[in-house]
C-alpha cells in the first residue's frame, strides 16, 4: 500500500507552518501503508486540540469526539468491532489533562488500540497556556509567574499502570517515528507513543533544536526490563531516550476477555436481538 492512499485531497490544514504535526501525520500515513493497512481498515479517533484535528487531515474512518474522551471512544469502537485498527490521537492537554482519568483506566483495561500523543508541552488551540507536561517555570499569559506544578510524566505513569507498550518518539525524526508507530500498531494491547513535537507558535523553549540537543536514540536496550524502562522514564532532565522503552507480550486484551465474544465472534453490529435469551430469562422469573 502506498502512503498516498491515506491522502485526503482538498483539505484546508489549520496547523501553523513548520508545526511538528505535519511530520507526525506523514509518519502515521507511511507507517500504516507499510503495515499493509488501507483507509477502510483504520479508525482514527481523537478529542480536541491541534493534534486532535489529525483524523480530518487523512483518508480513513474517523471519529473526532470531545476533549479528553478519545480513549473512551476508541476502547468502545474496538470492543464493538475488534477487527478494526483503532488509533487514538491527541495532544498532551487532551490525553493527559482533560482525559487523565481515561488515560489511567484505559491502560488498566489494555484494549488493543494505539495511543499517539503529540506532546508539545503547551496548549496550542487555546493559544499558549501551560499543559500538564510544561516544564516548571514555563511562563505563559496565564502562568504569569511560571508553572509551579510538577510536570506530568506520561511514560512513568503508563508503566506504573501496567501499560504493555511504552515508547517515545520525536516528530523531527520522521523515519524513526514511523518505525515506532508501526511497532505500536502491531503490538497486541494498549500501546502508548508519546511523541515530542515542537510548537513553533507558543513554545519557544522546547524547539526543534532543543529536542535534538536533548534526545538520543535507545540502543541495545532490553525492552522487557521493567526496572530499566522505569529508570529511563523517570529521567527528570535530558537527554531523553527515543524508542521503545518497554514492551510486554501476552497480557489479555480487554476485548478478548469480554463475555460478549465467548461464544460469538461477530462484531456487535452484525448481531440480532437476543430474543431467545430474553424469553428464557422471563421464564426463569416465572419460577
Amino acid at each position, binding site marked *: 500500500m502506498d502512503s498516498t492512499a491515506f491522502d485526503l485531497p482538498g*483539505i484546508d490544514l489549520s496547523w501553523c507552518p513548520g508545526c511538528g504535526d505535519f511530520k507526525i501525520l506523514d509518519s502515521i500515513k507511511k507507517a500504516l501503508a507499510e503495515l499493509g493497512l488501507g*483507509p*477502510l*481498515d483504520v*479508525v482514527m*479517533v481523537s478529542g*480536541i486540540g491541534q493534534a486532535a*484535528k489529525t*483524523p*480530518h487531515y487523512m*483518508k*480513513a*474512518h*474517523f*471519529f*473526532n*469526539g*470531545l476533549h*479528553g*474522551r478519545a480513549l*473512551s*471512544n*476508541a*476502547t*468502545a*469502537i474496538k*470492543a*464493538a*468491532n475488534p*477487527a*478494526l485498527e483503532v488509533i487514538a490521537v491527541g495532544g498532551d492537554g487532551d490525553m493527559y489533562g482533560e482525559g487523565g*482519568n*481515561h488515560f*489511567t*483506566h484505559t491502560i488498566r*483495561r489494555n484494549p488493543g488500540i494505539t495511543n499517539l500523543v503529540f506532546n508539545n508541552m503547551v496548549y496550542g488551540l487555546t493559544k499558549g497556556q501551560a499543559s500538564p507536561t510544561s516544564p516548571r517555570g514555563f511562563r505563559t499569559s496565564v502562568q504569569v509567574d511560571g508553572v509551579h506544578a510538577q510536570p506530568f510524566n506520561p511514560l512513568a505513569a503508563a508503566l506504573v499502570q501496567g501499560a504493555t507498550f511504552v515508547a517515545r518518539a520525536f516528530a523531527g525524526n520522521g523515519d524513526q517515528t514511523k518505525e515506532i508507530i508501526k511497532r505500536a500498531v502491531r503490538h497486541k494491547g494498549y500501546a502508548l507513543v508519546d511523541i515530542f513535537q515542537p510548537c513553533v507558535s507558543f513554545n519557544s523553549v522546547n524547539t526543534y533544536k532543543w529536542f535534538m540537543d536533548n534526545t538520543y536514540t535507545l540502543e541495545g536496550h532490553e525492552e522487557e526490563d521493567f526496572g530499566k524502562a522505569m529508570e529511563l522514564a523517570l529521567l527528570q532532565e535530558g537527554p531523553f531516550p527515543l524508542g521503545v522503552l518497554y514492551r510486554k507480550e501476552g497480557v489479555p486484551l480487554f476485548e478478548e476477555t*469480554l*463475555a*460478549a465474544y*465467548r*461464544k*460469538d465472534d461477530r*462484531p*456487535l*453490529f*452484525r*448481531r*440480532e*436481538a*437476543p*430474543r431467545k*435469551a*430474553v424469553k*428464557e*430469562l*422471563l*421464564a426463569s*422469573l*416465572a*419460577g
Partner: protein
Amino acid sequence: MLFSSLKDSRDVCCVLCGAAGLGIQTVEDMLAGIIVDEGFSVFGSREYMSRVRGGNNSTELRIASEPVDALIDRIDILVALSRKVRRNILERISSDTVIFGDREELKGELEDLGASFVDIPLSSMAKEAGGRIYSNSIAAGVLLGVLGLGTKGAEDFYMKRFAGKDGVVASNIGAVTRGYELGLAMAGEGGVLKGRPRNPKGRKAIINGSDAVSLGAMAAGCNFVTAYPMSPATGVLSFFAKHAEKAGAVVEQVEDELAAMNMAVGAAYAGARPLVTTSGGGFALMAEGLSLAGVMEAPVVVHLAQRPGPATGMATRTEQADLDLALYSGHGEFPRALYAPGTMESAFRLTQEAFEIALKYQTPAIVLTDQYFMNAFYNLDADGLEWLDEPPSVRETEEDYRRYEDTPDGCSPFGVPGWGKGIVGADSHEHDEVGHVYEDFDLRTRMQDKRMRKFAGMEERALPPVLVGPESFSNLVICWGSTFPIVREALECLGRDDTALLAFEQVWPLAPSAGDLLRKASFTAVVEGNSTGQFAGLLRKTFGVAADRTVLKYNGLQFSVEEVADRLGEILPGKGGGR
C-alpha cells in the same frame, strides 16, 4: 378479634421491617414467590436507608386475588424484626393493624400505638432453630401461617438457595415450621386468605422495574452497557453483567460517567446498540457526551433512575425531579425522546421503543424511572408482554458514502466503519455531510435544520398518554412515570364519574393529541414527585394549558394510594357521584 378487618378488604398488606442485614430481602423474595405459586397476586415495594448494616428498612407486600400494582399506606400485618422502627412506618399503623414482634427485642416499642401487638419470641425461637440468624425465617413462617400458604414453598426455596448446605436448609425449614404453627394458630384454619379466589395459571413472572428495563433493552438488541455504579440504577448494570454472554453484550463498569457515555457514543458509531444506566448525579456528568450523541447523530439510550437531589440528595430514596434535567441536559439544540414507564409491562415495551426511536432517528433517547419503580415488583403474564420489531441490520456503505447525507426527514442512511466500501466519519464540530469539520454559516444552518427535522417525525410517532376513566370527564388528573398505578387506584377509590386520569408514559416529545384532552377539561391537576411541578410546567409550555392545581411530593418517599386519594379529594371540584 385479630384480622377481622381483612374480611372485606380487597387485599392483605404485610410490612416487614428491621435493620439492614437481617435478611428481610430474602423473606420478601421467598414470600413473593410462594404467594404467586399459590395462585395469588403480589405487589412489593421496598424502602431502605443508605447503609449496609443497621438502620431500619421495610418492605411492603400486598396480596390479593386480582392484580395489585400500587403502593398503599394501610398496614394489616406488621412484622418488626428490630427496634427503632421509623416514623414513616409508625404513622401507617392503625387500630386494625396486627403487629408481630419480639417483646424482649423491641423493649416495649410498638405496644402503645393502639394496634394489636402479638409477642413472638423470635430470638429464643431462632436460637432453638439453630441461631439468631434464623429469626427472619421464623418471621417468614409466622406470615406464611397467618396467610395459610403452607410450608412446602419455603422448603423448596431453601433447598434451592442453600443447595449443598443441608444443615442450613434444615435449620431454615425448622425455623419456618415453628413460625408457621404459631401463625396458623392465630389466624385460624386455612389462614386469612381462606376462601379467596386463586388463579393458579396466569401471571407467574415476578418482575421489578430493574428487570423490566433490562429485559426491554435486551429484547431491543442492546449489546453494549457501560456504567458507573450509582443507586438506584445499578440493577440494570448487574442484570446485563450477569447475562452478558447470553445476551452477547459488552458490559463494562467504567471509571466515571464521562467514560460511560463516551464509550456508548463510540460503540454506537461502530454499530453497537448501547445503553448507559445512571442516576441524576451521574447523568449530570454525561451531559457533554449526550450533546455529542446529538451532533454525531449517535443512537444512544440512557436509563436515568431518579433519586432526590440536588447533588447527592437522598441516595436510596425516590423523586421525579430530573425531568427538566433529562429534557434540557446537553449544550446546543438536538432532538431527543423521553420515556417514563408507569408499569412493568410498559417499561419492557418503552425501553424497546427508546432503542427503536434512537436508532431510527439517530439521536439519544432516555428512559426515566426512579428508585421506587426500580425496586417495586409484581407478578404479570410474561406471554402478554409486547415485543417491537427486531432492529434492522446495518447496510453496507457505498464508496461515496456520506454519514450525514441531507435527507427530507433528516435521517441519513446509517453505516458503520468496517462494513462496505465507504469511509464513515463522525464529528463533534459542526460538519459537512461526510462528517468533516467545516466552518460555513450556510452549512451550519442546513445541518442544524437537518438534525432538528428529525424531531417532526419523532413528534408524529409520540405515544399518546393513557386515558383512564369516563370520556365525559370534566376534571382531569394528570401524572407521569411511576405514579401511574398509584393515581389510578386512588381515583378508583374516589369513584367519581366526572374525573379521568391522563397518564403520560412518553414525556417528550408530547403527543399533540394530548393538548385536545387538556383543553377539554374544566379542571386539571398534575400529580408529580417533585417540588416545582416540572411536568405541569412542560404541559403549559407545550400546550398553553396551565394546571389548576398541582399535587406534589418530595420528601423522598413515593406517593401512596391513600395520600393521592385524600389530596385529590380535597381539591377536585364538584361532587361527581363520589361514593
